């Protein structure tokens, strides 16, 4: 029994996520118990809801980015799908009288379609995904601003009820995020899809020689990322009751990729975990919310955030080296 526990402990230390987990815990302890301003506010309901609402969008988009990074690609465009999807829902309902549920589904399908186009340009035309998604991102940005005349819109009345389940209820976003992380954790670690995603990123030629359908894996993962972007856009629209032409854009994507990488996903493909991305997002959210609680202004915040990301990454690289040495013995 004791041996089992010790083995579990040793395994935890070997896990890359453990470092991030410890960092998140330390940050929570700091902001929640040590800082005077934090003690009174950090664990209040309002603040915890706020914390989860910062984390959830990062987590959900990171799910897609983890899959793409593992199979050797990246998507810069989900923040722009996020921007356009709620407008699309608004156009469909208010201008074309489409029923609410169908409009929501069509907006998610639109996200998948953007993913398909990203995959087509990357896989079939042969552009690097960095360039492909840079291009499609700008197009979506311009498309949104042109069609909405840079003016915000209200959430269509017919979506209010369903919107509560999707994003406007206090805990709905984080519940979705956790459920999706659990599902995709299983997909990544326990299904053929996950195994083949790792295979494609680990050794693309080898995977192809073994008969893995490389194109299918990439198409699928781009489409998942597109849907996640659209889903988050809709959630935020429901949460704020407003469809905002300055929402989304590059920031959600950067946070998500940062969360994935902090959580141990390799930029060069072949490895990564959903749990790690979840913890990475939690770390970013606790930092953001914690500084907010402390009253640190937005200006130095980015300096500290950037520094934290770098420190986390350096620690990860060093720990990986140590772990490698430990295993080779």
């Amino acid at each position: 029994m004791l041996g089992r526990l010790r083995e579990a402990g040793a395994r935890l230390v070997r896990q890359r996520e453990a470092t991030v987990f410890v960092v998140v815990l330390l940050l929570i302890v700091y902001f929640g118990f040590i800082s005077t301003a934090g003690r009174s506010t950090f664990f209040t309901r309002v603040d915890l809801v706020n914390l989860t609402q910062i984390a959830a969008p990062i987590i959900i988009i990171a799910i897609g980015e983890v899959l793409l990074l593992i199979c050797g690609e990246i998507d810069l465009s989900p923040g722009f799908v996020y921007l356009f999807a709620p407008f699309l829902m608004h156009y469909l309902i208010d201008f074309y009288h489409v029923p609410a549920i169908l409009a929501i589904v069509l907006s998610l399908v639109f996200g998948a379609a953007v993913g398909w186009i990203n995959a087509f340009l990357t896989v079939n035309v042969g552009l690097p995904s960095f360039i492909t998604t840079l291009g499609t991102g700008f197009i979506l940005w311009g498309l949104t601003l042109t069609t909405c005349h840079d003016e915000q819109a209200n959430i269509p009345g017919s979506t209010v009820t369903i919107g509560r389940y999707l994003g406007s209820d206090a805990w709905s976003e984080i519940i979705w995020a956790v459920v999706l992380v659990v599902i995709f954790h299983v997909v990544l670690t326990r299904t053929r899809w996950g195994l083949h995603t790792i295979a494609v990123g680990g050794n693309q030629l080898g995977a192809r020689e073994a008969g893995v359908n490389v194109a299918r894996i990439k198409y699928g993962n781009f489409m998942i990322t597109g849907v996640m972007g659209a889903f988050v856009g809709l959630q935020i629209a429901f949460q704020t009751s407003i469809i905002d032409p300055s929402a989304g854009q590059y920031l959600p994507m950067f946070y998500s990729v940062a969360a994935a990488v902090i959580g141990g996903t390799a930029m060069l493909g072949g490895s990564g975990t959903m749990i790690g991305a979840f913890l990475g997002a939690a770390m970013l959210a606790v930092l953001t919310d914690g500084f907010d609680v402390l009253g640190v202004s937005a200006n130095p915040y980015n300096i500290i955030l950037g520094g934290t990301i770098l420190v986390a990454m350096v620690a990860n690289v060093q720990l990986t080296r140590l772990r490698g040495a430990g295993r080779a013995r």
Partner: protein
Amino acid sequence: MTAQASEGPSGSAGQNGDVLTVEHVAKRFGAVTALVDVNMRLAHGEVLGLIGDNGAGKSTLLKILCGFQQPDSGRIVLHGEEVTLKSVDHARSLGIDAVYQDLALIDQLSVYHNIFLNRERVRWPLLSNRTMRKLARERLDDMGIGLQSVDLPVARLSGGQRQAIAVARAVYSEAKILLLDEPLAAMGAKEAALILDLIRDLKSRGDVSVIVIAHNYGQVLEICDRVNLLQHGGITLDKPSRDTSVQELNDIVIAEYRRALEERQRAVG
């Protein structure tokens, strides 16, 4: 316990005992002509050695036979029937499997996931990891490949062990036709002996036919029933191993080098 992956067709041979014949196969890549007119046959239960200079097109021929690439023209006849090998999966479903020169292993995945890559045991929607782990362990023990754990990522294995895993994967597929591209490259004498034993073992089973690409003529003659030389885009020599010798094969290759050297001197001079 779990759904068994579909097995290859039984090794029924064509009328003349050949399981595979290649007729007038040609392949070019842009300006480079890799294969001009290849005619080759593989008999039931036979081990055929394919030799030739670097760049002669041996690997290209192998990749055509395993469905990875498609020929520009020519016919492939399998068990007496003409086939078009559309993909690696398709060729596999017809009982043809290959070990590539680059091994096609995924460093990040465990030994057993590599062995089962793309023919995973699945209890939908989840992978049957326990079953795969157990089967991989049994098979590797059977084959005499000593590994502490099948859970290790293949990145942690030696060159020879990696080669052995790649061969084990192909053998494990229960293919009736096995294509081995330099299975002895990057191997020490001890590890090479292991692979040679494996091939001998396959031969003794009698229902598997093998094509081996190799550079060490001594090893080729030892394990192969017959030798084919690929030269200038076609098969220029086809002899049973007992009717040729390391000396003869060496002479042919040396003659070719001499010719290339003379041509070069003429071009320079």
